[in-house]
Every structure is written in C-alpha cells, then in structure tokens.
C-alpha cells in the first residue's frame, strides 16, 4: 500500500478539532490506481493507466454538513480545504431549520485488504493484452457475419485511510477487477445481435486478483458465444404476452440491483436523491409489514462476502461491515442506511456509506445485496420442472421508474421451454413488471451450486454522479405470469 500523508492528515484533524462550531469531522485520504484494457477486432482500443490521489473532508457544523477536498495532500492545502468545508457548513447552517441528527459512534480501528493470489498490477501488460487478443480472434473466426468482437479487462486498486474526530482510524486496500468479451453478428439485412460472456459488460466485476481471469477462461467459451450470436440472426422474435419466466443468475443479479438494492437505500426513501435518481416505494410505514416477495425471497445486504464487489472492512463514516437481511422470506424488514438516515427512523446504521473517490462525499451505496439460494436444484432441473416458459439471459437494456416499481429489461437471448426442455432460440426478448408483484410471483430459486456472486462496477448514483462497485449473489429463479415482448 502506498504511504498516506499521515502527518498532514493528523494535523488537519487537529485543526478541525479546534473549531468550536463543529460536532464531527472526518478526513479521508484516497489513492486509486486503475488499468483499463480493451481489444477490439485485433487492435488495442484502449490501453489506459489511471491514478487519482487526494483527501476529502466532511464536517458537521452546528446545523449542517460541509464538504471540501484537495488533490494537494500537503498540510497547508488540507487545512485550507478544511477551512472551506467549515465555511460551507456555516453558510448552509444559516438557513437550516433544524440541526442534522448524527448519533455518536465508538471509534473504529484496524486494517482491511482484499484477499488475492496474484496481484494484477504485477502482471506484465503484454500478458494481459494477449489474454484479450486470443479470444477476440476466436470470436471473429469462421463466419463473415461475425462483424466485430471485443474483450476487456479493468483493474482498480483503492487504498484509503479514514480519520475522524471520534477517534476512528481505519486503513483499507481494495482490489477490483472485471473481465469479459462480446461479439456482434450482423445479418444481410443489417440487423445486429450481440452475445457476451460471462455477462453484459459492467456486470462482470469482482474483488480479487489475476487468478480470477484464468478461472473465467474466455477462450473456452468463444465457440458457444459466437454460435449463439449467429443463431440469433435467424431466430424468431420473443412472442408477446404473459409467460412463465426463468432468469439465469446474472439477470437475477441485475433484477436485485434495480428493484431491491436501489429502493432500499434510505437516502432515496427520505428524498435526498430526488435530484438525479428519484425516491422509493419502500416507505418507512411499510417496514415489517409489506409483503415484498414470495416466501422464497430472502435478500441480504452483506458487506463481508469474500470476493464480493461490495465487500469492505468499514464504510466511509467508520461503521464496520455487517450482514443485514433486507427482505426476510418475502417480508420487507430493513434498509441500506447511514448513521444520519438510520437515526431518522430510530435505527442503527447498516454501514453502507461510501464515496467513489477523494473528491466526492460518501452517500448510501449498495454492498453485496444478494438473493439466498433456494431448493430448486440446478438450472437444468428448473428447466425440466417447467412445462411452458421462456428462459432469458444476459442483460441488454435496463429501465425502472423513479419509485423503483415499474421495470423493463431486455436481454441478449431467450430459449423457449416446452414440456421441460429448451426448444427454439428467441431474439430481442424483454420483460416488464411491477416490483412487489414480480417478486411475489417467484416460485422457484435454484440451489447453492448455481449461486454466484456477480459484481456491478459502474453503479451510478449521487449528484454529481458517483460510480461504485457493488455486488449481487444470485441463483437462477422462476417467476410466473410475467409480461414479455420483443424489441424487434
């Protein structure tokens, strides 16, 4: 881990402690390294190294918050930034009607680091590019209709240290990765079909090292992926109407993300995110009484799963990582929360405040929000147990309303299921529904062997927008009476 500007951070915190009007202050140093590699059609489309380093300072005055930041990590610059944060808190406090409620918390201390076998930043660049080039060539080979192929690999290491006036002093080193590929097949009519592996670009994240790339084995999947892309060119469109719907696990993950993860964010619920994302239908009076889903649906916010994109030691206001059920056997029971928002409901924070870098304040973010596995066996067991339905895989588009009720997803591929067997391929499927009705129709979840922890690496939230790593564990699941259609 690179050294943090220890003395300057402590001096800044000492300066903040001397400000009589402050109730709380935190100083957060963040040093981020990144690498973005993209190979398209045999040429490098992107070879980018990234570095970002600075300090964010959040203070709570008598009534209101202030935030300021500095890329210069010297003491004079940090004290100046602290002064700006104090001035902002004072200016906002002058028009505040009531002071922010922010319960005290004991000091957190310690270190946390992602467990990894092979440091991805120590792997030679040419090895990484070769690992992308070979599958791209395989995806393009054998048929002129395979018009374009791309493979990508992203690495991010975020080292951060949080000091607060409560005595918190935690140091964390998180290593995120993502890797995948896709191919576009183009028909004579100009129509284009995409197939991806392991899932859509942006949904393939994890915490870990280079060993995860080997486990993905892109090359071994190239033939299947391009065969499906070609087959989709001549497949019929997905028929419209209510159907029994089977989702493969990465699509369940995105369904969780949009229709459970975001609406359980308590800042959205209380109206703090209207200026970009919207509110939430999961209002406090429904806590403990709303039937969110069927009894098979248990959704857990877990910041401790090894390898999860949403795993850490402490959140960015010093709350230790934990595990909290959000939906327990269908019943809505808890929120993703912060110290301030939880206090508004008389509850304790579930430890989800994170910022995407040194120059943004922390906001409530998903951790790993996951669906517990069920007892429906394997995906093929689930198919065999379905008389008439449609299995869809790999997200293509996503949309949900500002209360997180009405959603619509389109996917790359669908298979019709008749009498327990996959029959014909269907193109451009989409499905749409209303969140509690949809999860209420869940009548099967596959078992632990099918459960996989997926990672969304670009979850957007906040204003100005912040991009975050979050995780979702899921197994394939079945839903009844879902409205489907085709975008063709």
């Amino acid at each position, binding site marked *: 881990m690179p050294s943090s500007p220890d003395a300057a951070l402590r001096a800044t915190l000492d300066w903040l402690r001397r400000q009589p009007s402050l109730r709380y202050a935190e100083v957060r140093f963040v040093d981020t390294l990144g690498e973005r590699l993209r190979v398209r059609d045999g040429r490098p489309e992107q070879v*980018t190294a990234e570095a970002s380093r600075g300090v964010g300072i959040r203070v709570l005055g008598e009534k209101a918050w202030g935030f300021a930041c500095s890329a210069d990590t010297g003491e004079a610059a940090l004290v100046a930034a602290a002064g700006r944060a104090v001035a902002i808190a004072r200016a906002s406090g002058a028009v505040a009607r009531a002071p922010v409620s922010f319960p005290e918390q004991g000091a957190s201390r310690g270190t946390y680091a992602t467990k990894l076998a092979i440091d991805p930043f120590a792997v030679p660049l040419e090895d990484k590019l070769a690992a992308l080039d070979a599958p791209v060539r395989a995806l393009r080979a054998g048929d002129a209709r395979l018009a374009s192929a791309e493979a990508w690999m992203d690495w991010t290491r975020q080292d951060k240290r949080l000091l607060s006036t409560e005595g918190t002093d935690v140091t964390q080193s998180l290593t995120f990765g993502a890797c995948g590929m896709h191919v576009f097949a183009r028909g004579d009519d100009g129509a284009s079909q995409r197939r991806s592996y392991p899932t859509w670009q942006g949904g393939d994240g994890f915490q870990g090292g280079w060993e995860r790339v080997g486990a993905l084995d892109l090359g071994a999947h190239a033939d299947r992926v391009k065969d499906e892309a070609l087959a989709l060119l001549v497949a019929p469109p997905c028929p419209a109407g209510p159907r029994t719907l089977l989702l493969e696990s990465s699509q369940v993950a995105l369904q969780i993300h949009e229709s459970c993860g975001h609406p359980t964010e308590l800042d959205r619920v209380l109206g703090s995110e209207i200026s970009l994302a919207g509110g939430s239908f999961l209002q406090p009076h429904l806590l403990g009484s709303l039937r969110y889903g069927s009894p098979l649906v248990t959704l857990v916010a877990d910041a401790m799963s090894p390898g999860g994109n949403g795993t850490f030691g402490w959140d960015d206001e010093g709350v230790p990582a934990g595990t909290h059920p959000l939906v327990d056997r269908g019943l809505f029971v808890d929120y993703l929360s912060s110290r301030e928002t939880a206090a508004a409901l008389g509850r304790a924070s579930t430890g989800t405040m994170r910022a995407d870098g040194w120059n943004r304040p922390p906001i409530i973010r998903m951790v790993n929000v996951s669906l517990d596995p069920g007892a429906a066996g394997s995906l093929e067991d689930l198919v065999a147990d379905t008389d008439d339905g449609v299995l869809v895989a790999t997200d293509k588009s996503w949309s949900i309303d500002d209360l997180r009720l009405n959603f619509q997803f389109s996917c790359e591929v669908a298979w019709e299921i008749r009498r327990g067997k996959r029959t014909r391929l269907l193109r451009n499927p989409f499905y749409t529904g209303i969140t509690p009705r949809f999860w209420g129709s869940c009548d099967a979840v596959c078992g632990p062997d099918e459960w996989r922890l997926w990672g969304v690496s670009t979850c957007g939230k906040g204003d100005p927008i912040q991009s975050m790593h979050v995780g979702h564990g899921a197994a394939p699941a079945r839903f009844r009476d879902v409205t489907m259609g085709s975008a063709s």
Partner: protein
Amino acid sequence: MSELLSLCREVLSEAGEAEAEIYVSLAERGCARFAGGELGQHMQLSEPQAAIRVAHGRQVAETVTSRLDREALVRAVHDTARAARLVPEVEGFPGFAEAGAETGEVPPRYAEATAAATPEERVARLAPALDAIRAAGLVSAGMLETSRASHAVATTRGCARSHDATIASFRVWALETPGAGGAAGYGGHLHRDVRALRVEEEAERAMRTCKASLRPASLDEGTYDVVMEPEAVTELLEWLAMIAFGAPEVEQGTSPVAGRLGERITGEAIDLVEEPGDATDLGFGAPFDREGTPRSRVTLVEKGVARAILYDRTYAARLGAASTGSALLPPGGIGPTSLAMGAGTAASADELLSDVDRGLYVCRLHYVNGLLEPRRAVMTGLTRDGCFLVEKGRIARPVGNMRMTDSFLEGLARCDGMTRARKAVPTWWSDAGAFVAPAIRIRALRFNGRSQEGWQQGGGYTEQVVPGPQSC
C-alpha cells in the same frame, strides 16, 4: 498563455518523448444540493485531470491522472512511453495533432461572477426559492451549481490550445412528498453567468407543475399523440447520441446510421446538428476536443436524411475522413457534446397541444435506455415530474407516470410540430456540455405500461389494478 497550457508544454519538453500529447483540465465546482427543503449536501469539488498519450509509431498507450504537479506529469509521460512499447499497433493511428488552424472566434463561455461565487452567495440565491416552495406547502429538492473549468492541450507536433469556461446551473423539484412519489414538478436553467440564472422563475414553474399534477388519474396503455417539453426530448437525444453518431458504433454496425448515410432515417421535419460553436446562451463547451482538434459544426441529420457521423483522428484516418473534433475525454469514445435539434414554427407548447384531440403532455422522461434495438433506436423510459392527459387541444387532467417503448427515429418520423423556442439542457456526463431542443409533437407514440400499476401510496401493493380517482 494559460497556466495549464504552459504546464503542458513544459512537461512535454522536459519528458523528451518524440510523440506525445497531454490534455489537462481543472474544474472547481460549488454544488449546493438540497432535499426536503434543507441543504443536505453542500460541496466544493476539485476535479483535476491530465490525460497523457505517448506513441511509438502506431503503438499508443494512455495515462489518466489527478496529479497535476510537473514532476508527477513528467513521470507519467515516461510511464506511458514504457507502456506504449508493449502494446500492439493501433490500425490507422495518424500521430498526434499538429499546430493546425486556429479555432476561430471563441464564443462567450466565461463569467467572472460564476467563477468567484462563494458558498454564501449560492445559499443567498437559493434561500428565497426554498422559502417559496415551503410556503406553498410543497417539498423542495435539487441543486444550484457554480463551476469554473480550465482546459489545455499540447502535443509534441506543435498543437497548443487552452480554454476557460464557467457554468451555473439550477435544477429544482417541487414535490408533494419528500421521496414517496406523488405529484412533482421540475424547473431548470443553465447559463454561464450565475447572475442570469432564472432561479425564482424555474422554482415557480416547478410549483405550478406540481400543483397541476395532484390527484392523477390512471390511463390505459396504448398509442398517444404526445407533446414533449425540451427536457423530455433531450433525454431521448442523449441516447441517440450514444448509439448513433460515433464512428465506432457505425463501423461496428450497431448504429441506426450504419450503411444508411444519404438515406432518410427519420421525418422530414428533423434536423440534428452538432453545434459546439453556438455563440448564443444555448452554447456550452470547449472549442476543441481532447486531441486538440477544433470541434466542427456537423450536420448529422438534414430534413430526416442521415448526412454525417463524428470522428476522432484515428477513426477519421482509418475510414478516410477528417476528424470532426469529437474525441471525448477518458474513458473515451466519440460523440456529440452540443447536439441541437432544429426549431419549428409553433409559438408555444400550447400551440402544439391545440392540434391534439386526445394525447399526452410530457414534461420529463426518466431512466431512458436506448439499447433495446439500437439499429432502430428502440428506446424505453418513463414519464416523470408532470404527465397530463390532453383532450380536444387542452390539458384535461394529470395522469400517473407511463412507460414509453418505441423507436425514437420512427417516432420522429411522425413529428409534425416543434416550437420556435429551444432550450439548453445539461447532459448528465458533466464535461460534455448541453443538448438543445424545442418542444415537439409526435403522433402515435407507444406506451406499454403504467409506472405504479397496482400500487397504492400509503397502502402498499394490491393484487388488483387500482384505477385512479378518475379512470380515463
């Protein structure tokens, strides 16, 4: 010469690489974000960024860093040079930009009052609007931002450009509830000069829309003639910009323009122009791109016919065209930053409504996605912050939010009315400027869902579809 441009040249000189490019930007943003009537997030944000590229022949690598001190930048150039030697060649890479022609007269983009705005001044501008919304019995949310940004780019081939800009923006919601849905109204304005921001007027507009949206009815799915305000139109234009006009998407074959240049792709009423040099209050953004190429005015769609696409230097060289100055900042890509839809002749949105027998008036759209079937520009999204049933040319009543799913280009082929007045609406990717659109009328747009079907605020979910107080 700007300080940043001097820095760029000094770094290139000291690093001594034969073929290198450095783009540096430094933004200082003051963001007063409010919700529930309180300033919950008031922030000063620094956004320093240097994007360095080094080439050895056609081998190219890039480094993006927040550290703008000279020593760190020189080190980054050397690191990038080492990486460039390890990567395969980029087909068609023509080298970095040369000195080239001047960008011409730079349109006004800077106001000292915005650059110097303090937290106290932002609060003072906001307070009356928050008070007014509270006095109306409504809840406020939104943000007032004052920002200044400096940009500079230099290459070892002699290109050297710099630019300073300011942006003041105000976005405001007036709400029936803080976060639980219900009636909502939106107002927004963008200007380089904070003194010109229409804070009170836009707050008033948000309150007016919110009050008119109380007690919505539930409307059936189906096709409706629609009048959209500029904020709704630009949501769709943003997605069209992402999928349609960049050379990579055209080369890949996923763009609706791919293989169709010179053909009619939408209605005869539609002109779409990348217009970065707009010198009016509708213009924002730098006059050059991250490669130092002057941003060109490009007619993308003329009377419904696809005329051109956008390039950076590499795609232009490979595809036999000239760069249009459309290289985007990291993470990169090629696309419009100042897309403008042509104006019509209607005096107002009311005039557009007057020729709607039964339809919808849509103030904004939410969570649009244009990846369903990009070749046809099929998009889906929901209404937000004001959706009204129109009967016999007049607004009849508010309706609950609706989901639209249709081809935007095919929809624009059914556009038969646009206002003379247009509005600049900020794009959500912060550095990319603003898109400009009039209010428009589209016939027979397809709506396939209601956003809160079966949901009763305060009562949870019921199995039966619950019609609104006055089912239409």
